[in-house]
């Protein structure tokens, strides 16, 4: 977990392990046994296969990931190897490299590994963020996007970590009560603490030493990749009729992050965040 500096680092590790254990222990075990082949092994593997075979396998991987991405749940490397790659595991790095290229050039998507420890991939849109004006394609909007936006923006504006009560209070003011069934979202608590967490938009971790147990929210890995803080701030400015720069700390965070490409240098943003939080 070197990408992020967190106060409760070990706790988060055990948390994610617990979560993944409850979902699929078998595949985690398999992942442990799968070691990334070295480049020389890959070379040798490639020699034994025809280019057509490798292309075919790459195409299968691409299709698998595309379908898996429908639910926005990250794809595990172990699953990928077990279900699709199978005997071609010696050339796995080459397949992934080619798959990444296909995603970028054909689909305009980016295949990103969001968890280097557990090896999970997500797809992110690679095209430039569209303008605030409505896109020409009228696809139906998902109200959950709105809900997610509210939660993410509160967390962002509050410095990156927020106690769960703050989120629930804010949502209550918007007529969304975690204790009641919402007509759009259904079981709100489940959507926020389970679905969004599983999709890696949010992280829901326990605060130590709290009695009764309380949790806090942070941005998840997918949110780091997908969500533009600058855009959030822009909308904030519109809503409050203020200049986004008036939130200087958040503005700094939003714009240093985006200038050095949000995905790669998360270390930069994290160091930035830690200095501001001191």
């Amino acid at each position, binding site marked *: 977990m070197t990408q992020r500096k967190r106060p409760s680092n070990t706790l988060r590790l055990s948390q994610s392990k617990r979560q993944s254990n409850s979902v699929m222990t078998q595949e985690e075990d398999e992942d442990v046994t799968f070691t990334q082949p070295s480049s020389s092994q890959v070379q040798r593997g490639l020699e034994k296969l025809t280019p057509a075979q490798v292309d075919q396998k790459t195409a299968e991987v691409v299709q698998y990931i595309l379908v898996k*991405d429908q639910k926005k749940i990250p794809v595990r490397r172990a699953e990928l190897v077990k279900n699709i790659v199978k005997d071609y595991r010696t050339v796995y790095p080459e397949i992934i490299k080619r798959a990444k290229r296909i995603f970028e050039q054909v689909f305009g998507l980016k295949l990103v590994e969001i968890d280097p420890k557990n090896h999970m991939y997500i797809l992110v*849109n690679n095209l430039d*963020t569209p303008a605030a004006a409505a896109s020409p394609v009228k696809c139906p909007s998902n109200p959950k996007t709105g809900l997610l936006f509210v939660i993410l923006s509160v967390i962002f504006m509050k410095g990156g970590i927020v106690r769960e009560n703050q989120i629930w209070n804010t949502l209550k003011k918007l007529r969304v009560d975690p204790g009641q069934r919402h007509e*759009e979202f259904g079981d709100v608590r489940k959507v926020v603490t389970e679905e969004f967490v599983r999709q890696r938009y949010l992280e829901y971790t326990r605060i130590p030493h709290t009695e009764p147990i309380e949790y806090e929210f942070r941005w998840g890995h997918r949110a780091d990749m997908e*969500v*533009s803080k600058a855009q959030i701030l822009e909308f904030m400015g519109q809503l*409050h009729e203020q200049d986004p720069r008036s939130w200087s700390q958040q503005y700094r965070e939003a714009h240093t992050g985006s200038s050095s490409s949000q995905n790669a240098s998360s270390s930069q943003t994290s160091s930035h965040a830690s200095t501001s939080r001191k």
Partner: protein
Amino acid sequence: MTSRRREMRKARAGADEESPRQNGSSSRRRSEQQAFEGEDPDSIPGGLQDNVDDDNDQGRRREIRSKYRDLINSVQQNREDMLSPSNNKLTEVLEEANKLFKEVRQAREAALDAQLLVVATDLGKEKASQLFSEGCAFDPTAFAEHLLSFMGLNRLEEEEENDELQNGGGVDGFLPKDAWHRLARRTECCFKTAPTFHYMMGSFYAEPPPPKQKSDRQRKASSKEVKRIMPTQLKKMEESHQEATEKEVERILGYLKGYFEDDPSPMSYYEFVIDPNSFSRTVENIFHTSFLIRDGLARLYLDDDKLPCIEPVEEEAGATSNRRQCIVPISPNIWRELIDVFEIREAIIQPPETQNE
């Protein structure tokens, strides 16, 4: 614990006060040292005389503990208020705790003191983090208000029915149905979500498998007519033996008719079918007799003693309205019992000459 308390006080946006706590702790340390250095355990240095009295005063101990608990509760209950930058209650709580600590003697009280410290530090941390937000702070309540307006909240005053539908609370008005959609559409640009993959024309239409009702009906039909189907199945299996079976049945019919011509009195069914020499032939006789009954050429009835009797029937096979079926079980034990009971000496139905066993 001393240094922590000191740092906490500095962290507050307050003046630099002289902490009475320090004096308290150093005096305590001095008294402890005295206690250790005393060579004679019986002679207690004069300075500790009052402390010993305090130690033994259970009432005082309880009082201290209860005060600690009150302090802890006050921090927990009034957390929201104490968070506000203008509120200095935390300082007062700490001062109170300092005073209490001077009188702490036992581990129980010290544990409560530690708990209070945890709660107070937590609050202090949050207060400190509030201080460091430069620029203007972010107020989630105002944010929510702005969002509601954006989502098209209709702030009507007389909408009482809709008020019940919503959470109640303070704000009147109702949110339009597409409120969240509106927000989602506006905020979609903040997300670089990969569009999900779907077939343009949808998936193929998979019909459910053909209903299973037909097979159920067939099964039900067959279970009703067990006796009927059994011979049919067997007949099919033994197609080569079909003629043999028919011949057998006719032969048995011949026996039956013959005996009734000779003696029209009722014949016991068991006497008729049982072959005292062979169980398997008995079973075959029963089997063949059942054909007769099925075809309506013979009939089984219960006589006055409730024993089954058999007699041939003169009517046409087709004109049968009152058909009933029964199942005749027989086992070697029953067979032997029947032989003893009915004193059957010889078989009425002679075994055929040719028989493949």
